[in-house]
C-alpha cells in the first residue's frame, strides 16, 4: 500500500513535473517571443524616428530653409506674366486690371503648389508624405516614359543601379571571401605579401581607377565603351541587349572592385587568421579533420559576424559611391538621378531619393541584428545591450 502510494505519489509527481516543465518551457518561449516582439517594436520605433529626423533635416536643407520657395514663386510669377503678355485679349485691359489679374493668377498657382502656407508647416507636410512614401510630383524632372511622378522616376532608374552595384558587390563579396581564405591558408607566402602591399591602393576610390580604366580600354585600346549602359540605339533582341549591357558593365564593375578588393580581402584574411589560431582549431587539426571541414566549421563560421559587418558597411557606402561612380561612367542610375535632381533644384526628387536611402539603410541596420543572431549563436536578439 505504502509502496503503491509511493508509486502513485511518484507518478503524480512525475506527471506534475512534466506539466510544470512543459509549462515553464512554454512560458519561457512565450517570454522569449514577447521579448523578441518588444525588442523588435522598440527597434522599429527607434529606426522610424531616426529616419524621420534624417529626412526632416534633408527637407530643410533641400528647400534651403524655405529659400527655394522664393525661387519657385518667382518662377511662377515669371511664367504667369509671360503667359499674360502673350495673350492678345490682355492688351485691352488697363494696367491696374492687368496687375490684378496677374496677382490673382500667381496666388492661385501658389496655392496649387501649397506655397501659401508657411514653410514650417509645409516642411512637416513634406516629412509626413515622405515618410509614407507618398513622394508626389517632380518639379522639373520627367521620367523617360514621360511620368512626372517621383516614384516612377526613381523606379525607372533603380534597376540599372541594382544591376551594376549588385553585380559588383556580389563579385566583391565572393572574391574577397575566396581570396581571404586562400591567403590565410598561405600565410606569409608571396601572394599574401603582395595583397598586403597592395592594400593601401584601396585608399583611392573606385571612380578614380575608373578614369584610368576608361583611359586605357576606351580611349587607347578602344575596345570597350566610354560609358553608358547599352549601346545606342539599344539592341532589339534580348540576347544582344544583355551582351551590350555586359560590355558596358565591365569597366564600372572592374573599377568598383579595384577600389575595394585588396583592402577587403586583406581585412578578411586577418579575421580568418585570428580565428584560425584559436585552440579549438588546433584541436580539430589534431583530430585529423580535413582542411575544408575545419575551414567551414571552425574558421568561416565564427568569422561570419565580422564579415557581415564589414560587408554591410561596404553596402552602406555604396550610396555615396554610386553618385560619383555613375557620373564617371555615365550610368543612368539612382546616383546620377540624385545629382541631376540637385542641379535642377528638384526638391521632391532629392527628398524622394534620400527617403529611399534612409529606409534602405534602416532596413539594413534592422536586418543586421537578426543576421547576427542567425550566424552567431552566442548573440540572442533582444538580450541585454550589445554596447
Amino acid at each position, binding site marked *: 500500500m505504502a509502496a503503491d502510494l509511493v508509486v502513485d505519489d511518484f507518478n503524480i509527481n512525475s506527471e506534475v513535473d512534466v506539466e510544470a516543465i512543459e509549462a515553464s518551457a512554454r512560458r519561457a518561449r512565450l517570454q522569449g517571443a514577447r521579448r523578441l516582439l518588444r525588442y523588435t517594436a522598440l527597434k522599429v520605433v527607434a529606426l522610424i524616428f531616426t529616419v524621420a529626423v534624417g529626412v526632416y533635416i534633408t527637407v530643410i536643407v533641400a528647400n534651403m530653409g524655405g529659400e527655394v520657395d522664393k525661387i519657385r514663386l518667382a518662377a511662377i510669377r515669371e511664367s504667369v506674366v509671360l503667359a499674360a503678355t502673350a495673350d492678345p485679349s490682355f492688351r485691352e485691359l488697363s494696367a491696374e486690371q492687368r496687375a490684378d489679374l496677374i496677382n490673382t493668377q500667381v496666388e492661385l498657382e501658389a496655392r496649387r503648389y501649397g506655397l501659401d502656407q508657411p514653410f514650417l508647416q509645409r516642411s512637416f507636410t513634406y516629412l509626413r508624405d515622405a515618410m509614407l512614401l507618398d513622394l508626389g510630383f517632380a518639379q522639373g524632372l520627367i521620367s523617360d516614359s514621360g511620368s512626372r511622378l517621383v516614384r516612377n522616376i526613381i523606379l525607372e532608374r533603380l534597376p540599372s543601379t541594382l544591376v551594376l552595384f549588385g553585380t559588383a558587390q556580389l563579385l566583391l563579396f565572393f572574391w574577397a571571401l575566396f581570396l581571404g581564405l586562400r591567403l590565410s591558408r598561405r*600565410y606569409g607566402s608571396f601572394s599574401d605579401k603582395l595583397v598586403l602591399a597592395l592594400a593601401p591602393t584601396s*585608399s583611392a576610390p573606385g*571612380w578614380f581607377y575608373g578614369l*584610368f580604366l576608361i583611359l586605357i580600354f576606351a580611349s587607347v585600346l578602344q575596345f570597350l565603351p566610354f560609358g553608358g549602359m547599352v549601346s545606342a540605339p539599344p539592341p532589339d533582341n534580348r540576347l544582344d541587349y544583355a551582351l551590350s549591357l555586359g560590355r558596358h558593365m565591365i569597366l564600372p564593375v572592374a573599377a568598383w572592385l579595384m577600389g575595394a578588393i585588396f583592402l577587403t580581402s586583406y581585412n578578411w584574411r586577418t579575421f580568418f587568421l585570428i580565428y584560425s589560431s584559436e585552440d579549438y582549431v588546433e584541436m580539430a587539426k589534431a583530430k585529423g579533420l580535413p582542411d575544408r571541414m575545419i575551414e567551414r566549421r571552425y574558421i568561416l563560421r565564427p568569422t561570419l559576424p565580422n564579415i557581415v559587418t564589414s560587408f554591410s558597411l561596404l553596402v552602406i557606402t555604396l550610396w555615396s559611391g554610386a*553618385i*560619383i561612380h555613375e557620373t564617371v561612367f555615365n550610368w543612368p542610375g539612382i546616383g546620377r538621378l540624385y545629382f541631376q535632381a540637385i542641379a535642377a533644384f528638384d526638391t521632391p526628387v532629392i527628398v524622394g531619393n*534620400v527617403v529611399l*536611402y534612409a529606409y534602405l539603410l534602416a532596413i539594413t541596420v534592422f536586418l543586421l541584428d537578426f543576421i547576427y543572431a542567425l550566424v552567431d549563436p552566442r548573440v540572442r536578439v533582444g538580450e541585454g545591450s550589445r554596447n
Partner: protein
Amino acid sequence: MSALALRWQQLRRYPSAVVGLIVIAMLVIVSIATPLVLPYSEAIRLWRGGDQEWRTNPRNAAPAWQNLFTETDQAATIVFDSAEGDGEQVAEQLSADTREVRYIYEFEFPYDTFPPELILFTSATYASKQPFVELLWYTPDGREIRSGEFTPTYTASFRFDQDNRLQRRLERETGIENVRASQGLFDDPTQEGLQVLKGTYRLEVVGLLFEPQADLEATFVSYGQVHGWAGTDHLRRDLSVALLWGTPLAMAFGLLAALGTTITTMSIAAIGVWFGGWVDGVIQRLTEVNAIIPLLPILIMVGTLYSRSLWVMLGLVIALSIFGLTIKNYRAIFLQVKELPYIDAARAYGASNMRIIFRYLVPRILPLLIPQIVTLVPFFVFLEAALALLGLGDPVLPTWGKLINDANSEGALFYGYYYWILQPSALLMLAGLAFAMVGFALDRVFNPKLREI
C-alpha cells in the same frame, strides 16, 4: 618622449612607411614652397585670368617632358615681345611725321612638327592716324615671304592662319592646297608633302607710324605643341599653377578634415561616456540619425544650393562627422578607460568634469588616434576630388580635382589629352598612397595585436 622614440624605431622598420614618409615630406615641402613663390591671391588671379593672362600660351599643349618619350620633337612655344625688349629693334625717321620701326625676331626652329598657331599681337598708340604694319618672313634657305599687311587699332591681333592672301601665296610656294600658314611658313618646299625645314627663321615686323607721338609694340607667338613642364588646358592656362597649388590645398583639406573629424568625434564620445545617462543617450541617437544622412549627398546639396567654397566644404565635412559612426568605437574604449583607478583618484580629489574628460580621458587614447588620422587623410583628399569631379569644386581655387573635372568635361580622354588627366591623378594617387602606407604601418606600431599577423 622615449615612448615616441620607440615608436619611431618601430616605424622605421617598415620600408613602405619610410617611402610614404618621404613622399609626404616632399608634398609638405611643395605645399610650403608654393605659396611663397606664388601667393594665394596671385594664384587665384592667374587661374581666373582668362585669355588676356594666358594669350601667349598654346591651347591643349602637352607637357614638354613628352618629347623625351617620342621620336619626333614637338614644337615648343616661341615668344618675342618687343615691349620686353626681345629681338632687335631698328627705328628710322622717314620724314617729319613718318617713322619706321622694325622689329627683327630671329629664332631657331629645330622641331619636327609645325606650330598649331601663329599670332602677332600689337598694341599701338596714336591720336588719329592708324599705323601700318607689314610682316616679312625669312626662311633658313633664304626665301622672303611677305606674310601680311594690316592697319592695327589700339590693340589688335594678326592671326597668320586666317589671312587668305598669305594662304594663297603659300599654296603657290608649297604646292599644297589649303595649306595652313603656320605649316606653309615652316614647310620645306623641296620635299614632297608637309615637312618641317629646320633652321634659323626670321620675322621682321615693319611698322609705319604717321604721327610723331605714335608708337607700336608687337608680340609674336609661335605656339608650341608642348608647353612648360605641365602642359596647358583648353583656356591656355598653364597646368603647373593648378598642380602646384593643388598640393597645399589637398594637404590642407585632407589633414584639417582628418584632424577635425577625429578630434571632434572623440571629444563627443568622451563627453557621452563621462556624463552617461541622457547625454550619452542623446549622443547615441544623434549618431544613428547622422548615419542615415549620407555625407556626399549632403555635400552635393550644400555645394549646389549654398556655397562651393573649399573652406565651407571643409567646415561642413567636420560638422557632419561630429556625430560620425566612429563614436561607437571610441565609446567602447572610453567605457573601459572610465573604470580605471586613476579616474577614481581624479574624482576623489575633486577634479571638474571637463578636467577629467580632457586631461585624463582623452589623452589616454591619443596614441590610437594617430593611425586613425593618417589613414583618414586620403579619404578626404579624394572626397575633394570627387566633389570637384561632380562640378562642385571651389569656384576660384585651382585644385587637382578641378583639373580632372575640366579634363573630363572637355573630353580629354576622347581627344587624347592624357597628360591633362594623368598628372593630377598621379599626384592624387601619390598623396593617397603615401598616407595610406604610413597609416598602415602606424596602425601596426600602435596596435601590437595586429603585428603578429
